[in-house]
C-alpha cells in the first residue's frame, strides 16, 4: 500500500558559522532518503550522517513539526517553504522531489533578519512589530461577559483568516523587497475587524507601521509573492486594509 521509494539527493546548503563570519554554499550528497520522510527529517538524516563523520551538523530552526508554530523556515530551491502551496517546510514531504534532484537550501534573507548560524535567522523584528501595538490594551480580570461583545460571523471569519498567521516570515523571505507588510497587516486587520480593537484602531496602525519601517523592512510593490508563499494563505487584501487604515488614521489622529 505504501509507495515508499528511496531517493539520492544532491544538496546545496548555506553554511555560516556565525553572524560575523562569511558563509558559503556547500555541496552534500545524501542517499537513501525515504519519499515518506518530511523535508526536515531529510535534514535530520543528513545531520546524523554528518555527526557520525565528525562534521558540524547543519543548524536550522524547527519545533512543532506540524505546521503551526511558525519556527521552521528555509528557502528551498529559491522558494520560501518550498514548492508546495500553503505548506510549511516541516509539512513538505520528500515525495515532491525526484531521485537525483539537486536541492538548494538557504536561510531567509532580509536586513531585519540577521543570520545566526547556517539556516537559522533572528526574527525578533516580528516580535518588535507586535510589541508596537499588535494587541488590545486590556488587563486581566476586568473583562465583561464574552457574549456582551457581539461579532458578526462575516467579520469574525475574516478576522480569523487574518489571525491564522503563524509568524514564520515566509512573506518577508519571498518578497523581493523583504517587506513585512503581509505580517503586519494580518494583525492590524484582525483587530480592525473586531469591536475589541476599535478604541486603539488608529494609534495601532500608526505605531506598527512606524516600527516596521524603522526595523529596515522593504516597501510593498504589490506583487503578491507573499500571499503565494504564505503557508496559511493569508490574503493581500489585508495589506489593502492596512493601507486604508493608515491613510484614515493619519487624517484622523490628533497628534
Amino acid at each position, binding site marked *: *500500500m505504501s509507495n*515508499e521509494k528511496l531517493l539520492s539527493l544532491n544538496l546545496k546548503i548555506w553554511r555560516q*558559522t556565525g553572524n560575523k563570519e562569511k558563509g558559503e554554499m556547500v555541496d552534500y550528497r545524501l542517499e537513501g532518503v525515504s519519499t515518506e*520522510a*518530511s523535508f*526536515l*527529517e531529510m535534514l*535530520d*538524516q543528513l*545531520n546524523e550522517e554528518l555527526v*557520525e563523520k*565528525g562534521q*558540524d*551538523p547543519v*543548524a536550522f530552526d524547527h*519545533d*512543532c*513539526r*506540524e*505546521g503551526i*508554530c*511558525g*519556527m521552521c523556515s528555509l528557502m528551498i530551491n529559491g522558494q520560501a517553504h518550498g514548492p508546495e502551496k500553503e*505548506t510549511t517546510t516541516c*509539512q513538505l*514531504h520528500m*515525495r515532491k522531489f525526484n531521485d537525483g534532484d539537486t536541492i538548494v537550501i538557504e536561510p531567509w534573507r532580509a536586513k531585519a533578519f540577521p543570520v*545566526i548560524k547556517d539556516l537559522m535567522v*533572528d*526574527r*525578533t523584528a516580528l*516580535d518588535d512589530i*507586535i*510589541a508596537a*501595538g*499588535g*494587541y*488590545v*490594551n*486590556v*488587563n*486581566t*480580570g476586568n*473583562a465583561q*461577559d*464574552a*457574549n456582551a461583545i*457581539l*461579532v*458578526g*460571523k462575516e467579520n*469574525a471569519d475574516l*478576522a480569523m483568516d487574518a*489571525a*491564522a498567521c*503563524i*509568524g514564520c516570515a515566509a512573506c518577508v523571505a519571498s518578497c523581493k523587497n523583504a517587506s513585512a507588510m503581509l505580517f503586519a497587516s494580518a494583525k492590524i486587520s*484582525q*483587530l480592525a475587524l*473586531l469591536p475589541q480593537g476599535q478604541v486603539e484602531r488608529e494609534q495601532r496602525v500608526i505605531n506598527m507601521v512606524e516600527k516596521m519601517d524603522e526595523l529596515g523592512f522593504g516597501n510593498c510593490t504589490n506583487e503578491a509573492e507573499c500571499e503565494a508563499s504564505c503557508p496559511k494563505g493569508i490574503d493581500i487584501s489585508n495589506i489593502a486594509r492596512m493601507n486604508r487604515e493608515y491613510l484614515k488614521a493619519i487624517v484622523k489622529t490628533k497628534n
Partner: protein
Amino acid sequence: MSNIKLDSKVPEGKLSEKWDNHKFKMKLVNPANKRKFKVIIVGTGLAGGSAAATLAELGYNVESFCIQDSPRRAHSIAAQGGVNAAKNYPNDGDSIWRLFYDTVKGGDYRSREANVYRLAQVANNIIDQCAAQGVPFAREYGGTLANRSFGGAQVSRTFYARGQTGQQLLLGAYSSMMKEVNKGKINVHTRKEMVELVVVEGKTRGIITRDIVTGEFEKHAADAVLLCTGGYGNVYFLSTNAMTSNGSAAWKAYKKGACFANPCFTQIHPTCIPVHGENQSKLTLMSESLRNDGRVWVPKKQGDTRKPSEIPEEERDYYLERKYPSFGNLVPRDVASRNAKEAVDDGRGVGSTGVAVYLDFRDAIKRDGEQAIRERYGNLFQMYERITDEDPYVVPMRIYPAVHYTMGGLWVDYNLQTTVPGCFALGEANFSDHGANRLGASALMQGLADGYFVIPYTLGNYFASEGLMTDKVADDHPEFEKALTESKERFNKLLNINGSRTVDSFHKELGKIMWEYVGMSRNEAGLKTAIEKIAKLRSEFWKDVKVLGSEVGVNVELEKANRVADFLELGELMARDALERRESCGGHFREESQTEENEAKRDDENFCHAAAWEYTGDNQVPNLHKEELKYENVELTQRSYK
C-alpha cells in the same frame, strides 16, 4: 527519610467557597511595592504567557524565558480542539458543578477536588478575558459565541477558533505579553534554556540559563521562579510534542527538592497518523472530532494484506462498536487507544507496517455526502493527505495512538507552589487538575486558569507572607556561582565523552523501551525490565555518547544531549511510579488490575492518592510520599462505557 511533608493547603469550607475564602485570606502586596519584586517565568506557553502578562500588569518585574526564537512558538500553539468553560450559553444544562464533576470523573478520581473545582470556576473568566483580547472565537450568525460538544461530552461547552484554538489563545496571551514588553515590564529572553534552579537557604532565588546562540551561561536572580515548561511526553522520542519540548526544567527542580507527582500518568491519543519509518522525528495528531463520523475497524482475519476496499463488510471487525455498544467509536481516549493496541498485537493491524487501524469515513460519506464531510473535516483530511499521500475520501485513514500529554508533573499545593518554596509550577508542568486522564479541551483551560487567575493571587501571598520585601538575594551569592559552575561542568562532561553513538540513537532507544514497557499497557515484569534497561542505557550514554563541537556558539547536539540525559532519569522514575501503582486508572493500565471483561479496574482502597517522588541522589531509589485524595463531594464510581 527526608522531612518533606505534603501539605496541599486546600482551604477549609464548602467546595464552592474555598477559592473565594482563600482569595480573601491571602496576604497582598502593596501596589507600590510590587515593582520591587522580580519574577522569573520559564516557558511562554498558555500558562507562562498568561502568567507573565498578568503579573506584569499587576506591577511585578517579569523576566520571561523561552527556548524558541519567540514567545509565540510555544507548543500550546498546536492544540486544535478548543477550550472548555461552563458558560451554559447553549442552555443545555451545563454548570460549574457539572464541568467540575466531568473533569474529576474523566480524571478517574486521581485529581485534587478543590483544584478542579477552582478550575471549573475560573474557566468562565478565561473565555471573557480571551474575547476581550480579540481572540477570534467562532461565532454564530447573531454574533454570539459558538459552542460545540467535544470528546464525548454530554453538553456543548467547548469554545473554539476553527481548528486552531490553541494558536489563537496563545497569540492572545502572547500579545498581552508584548503589550507589557512595550511598557518595559517584561524582559523577554529568547533562545535561552534553563539549566539549573538556584535555591538559597530553602527558598528559590533564581535560575541558571544557557544561551542557545552563544553557549554562554548566565545567572538570573529573582524573588520567585515559575516553571511553565509543559510536559515530558518526548521521553518516548516519538510523540505529538514539539521537538524542543523537554522535561529538563522540571527535572532540575525535582533534583533541588521539588517532588514529582504521578509521573506514570501519560495520555496516549488514539487518532494520530501512524509511524512510517525509522527516520521519523515526530507524530502528528488529528483532532479526535474525527471519531464523531469515522468508524474504527480492522480485518477479522490476522495478517490480512488485502486492500481495505477488497475486504467485505462481514470480514471487518468494528471492534469499538462491538465492545462498547453505547459509546461506540466515541469511547474515551485511553479506551480507544488500548483497543487499537490490542488489535495490532493480535496481528490484525493494517498498512505496510501493520501498526495501525482504519478510521473509515465511507459510511459517513454515503450518509451525509462528501460535501458535508469536507465541510466538517476538510482541513484534517488535507493534512492527512499531505503527510501520507492517501486520499481519505477514497481510502480509509490509518491511525494509531501516540503519546500526547502528561498528566503527571511537579507536585504543587493549592497555591501552585512545589515543595521548594518560591518555585511554582503551572500548566502541564504540574500534576494537579487532570488526575489520571485529561479530558479533551481541558489543557488549554488549565494553562490559562493557572496563569491568568490563580498565580496572580497566590504569588503575592507568598511574597507578603515570607517577608521577601526586605529579604533579597543577588546573583553574586555563592550558591549562584556554584550552580553556574556545576552547569558548565555538566555540559563540558557531555562534550568530553567523545563516544561513538549519536544523541538521537540513545533517545530513540529510550523511546522504544518506554513505548514497549511504559506505554499503553503495563505489567510488573515489563516495568522491572524497563527500569533495568533504562539504567543500563543511561550508564552507556554517559560513557559512549558522541557530542561534537564546542560549548561556544550554536550546538544543537549538545542541547539535545543535555535533555536526553534528563529523560534517561525521568523515564526510570515513570517506570518506577507505574510499578508502584498496582491499579489501572485513566491512562495508566496495569494488566494485573482488570475486570473480567478486560477493562481497567481502579483500586480506590489502596491507590486513591497522588504519588509524589522525592529525589534522594543520582542512581538512588527516590522516596515516595503520598497525598491522600479526599473526595467529599463526588462519589467514586467505576467508569463504564459499555
